[in-house]
């Protein structure tokens, strides 16, 4: 119990002191997961909208595949990306292993199926009328997809929130492809693992609390955005 209390106090000490190393870790986490979620959105939303606006019969296999990929364990995604990017792997020549870029690639791999899958479900739930209306007004395929995306934005924002929640909290993939290098590829979750391993429980809990607090602010922001879309 005392370690929990100490952890909470440590979190406040860390936040108040604005420790340089800590700030670096926090900003790196946000940068990596932020870029990953943007790329994942740009890939996942069009894919999900496209699949969602097609008839369910024709996309059965694709849907099942995406739903399966939504559950990819981060450590498996990490291992896969590691083997691809490692110096002996097919993309080894790029020298990307143990860099933030490798971590972004891994997180995009995790986030894209989630965003695509949830977008697909959202689009499917109200897409039919939209598709038919748009088609009856003479819209082409790409315009139909775009209209469907616009009409399903609440579900899509939900998909983005879910994807972001998954990758900002994920440790298995970034640990393997990033290597948890201090000042280079150390993010909040890998720092928590390291401090736990080192027996610095207070610091680990402190970092965990900061992660939750940040998550709260980001999600509040996205939530307000979502509500704004609905209330008008």
């Amino acid at each position: 119990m005392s370690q929990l209390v100490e952890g909470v106090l440590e979190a406040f000490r860390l936040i108040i002191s604005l420790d340089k190393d800590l700030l670096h870790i926090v900003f790196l986490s946000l940068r990596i997961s932020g870029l990953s979620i943007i790329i994942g959105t740009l890939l996942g939303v069009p894919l999900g909208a496209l699949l969602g606006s097609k008839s369910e019969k024709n996309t059965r296999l694709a849907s099942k595949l995406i739903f399966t990929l939504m559950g990819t364990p981060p450590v498996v995604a990490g291992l896969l990306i590691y083997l691809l990017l490692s110096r002996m792997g097919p993309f080894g020549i790029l020298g990307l292993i143990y860099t933030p870029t490798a971590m972004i690639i891994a997180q995009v791999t995790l986030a894209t199926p989630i965003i695509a899958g949830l977008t697909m479900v959202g689009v499917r739930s109200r897409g039919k009328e939209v598709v038919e209306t748009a088609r009856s007004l003479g819209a082409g395929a790409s315009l139909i997809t775009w209209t469907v995306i616009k009409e399903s934005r609440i579900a899509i924002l939900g998909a983005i929130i879910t994807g972001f929640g998954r990758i900002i909290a994920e440790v298995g993939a970034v640990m393997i492809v990033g290597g948890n290098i201090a000042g280079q590829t150390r993010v909040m979750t890998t720092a928590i693992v390291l401090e736990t391993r080192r027996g610095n429980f207070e610091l680990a809990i402190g970092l965990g609390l900061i992660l939750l607090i940040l998550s709260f602010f980001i999600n509040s922001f996205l939530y307000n955005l979502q509500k704004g879309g609905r209330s008008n």
Partner: protein
Amino acid sequence: MVTYKMKSRNSKCQVKIFSFLFTALMLVMPTGCSSIDEGSGQAQPGQEKYIHLATTTSTYDSGLLDFINPVFTEETGIAVRVISLGTGAALESGRRGDADVLLVHDRKAELELVEEGYFTDRYDLMYNDFIIVGPAYDPAGIRAANSITGAYTMIAGSGSKFVSRGDDSGTHRMEKSLWTEAEIETKGRDWYYSIGQGMGDTLRFTNEVLGYTLTDRGTYEATKTNLELKVLYEGDPALYNYYGIMAVNPSIHPHVKYNYAMEYINFLISDTGRELIEAYKINGTKLFFIDINID
């Protein structure tokens, strides 16, 4: 009417979404890019010089490298980017060319890989020792053991729990070879817990289940304030743990920073490097020793 309403709502929300994406991009991009391209290839003049050191959790988690590396960087301008793994994973990452220099502890495997050409310029750098820790009341009575195999036999005979790293680390390899030496089969025994985790995690696990485990002294000293485990057996020469340093062979992996790796190796085996290793203490206990005299 309906379409008009829909449109105005859409455009409002669109602005919101775009402004969000834009803000997110602004937040992410400017610094994001600068740190992203620097990972690859050879350092160019004006760029930060660095090497990747693949090492074991015992050297990193104990704080030794945080103590030594800043001095090296100060002296040479070469930053050391440390990736701490189990010895098995560290050897594999070096063999694949994902690191430039290795500091690990599985002497036999190291020498084999040097023989096969994956590594070069290997030196015995330092050693520490393994100890057996367990609950203070010592249910198997190994305080009275007169050899490590004796202690193992007592643990196996008492039915007390033994926790194994089980992660193919240097410590795990040492622990397995000692069971073989004691001629005790651990596979499938219900008192033998193979948990597949790092040393710190394994110590915490052992603490919770009131079991025994083999640990390097450094990690135990570094984390013992959160543990109720006590040192119950130590001192058998078979428990000495030798750390080797070696460079990834540039003739197999031409991209490695062999020159920087050699600067690091030469620094560690110099008098300055050795003095730093000897000077490092946790809670007043010296963790690594350099007066090596093997075979």
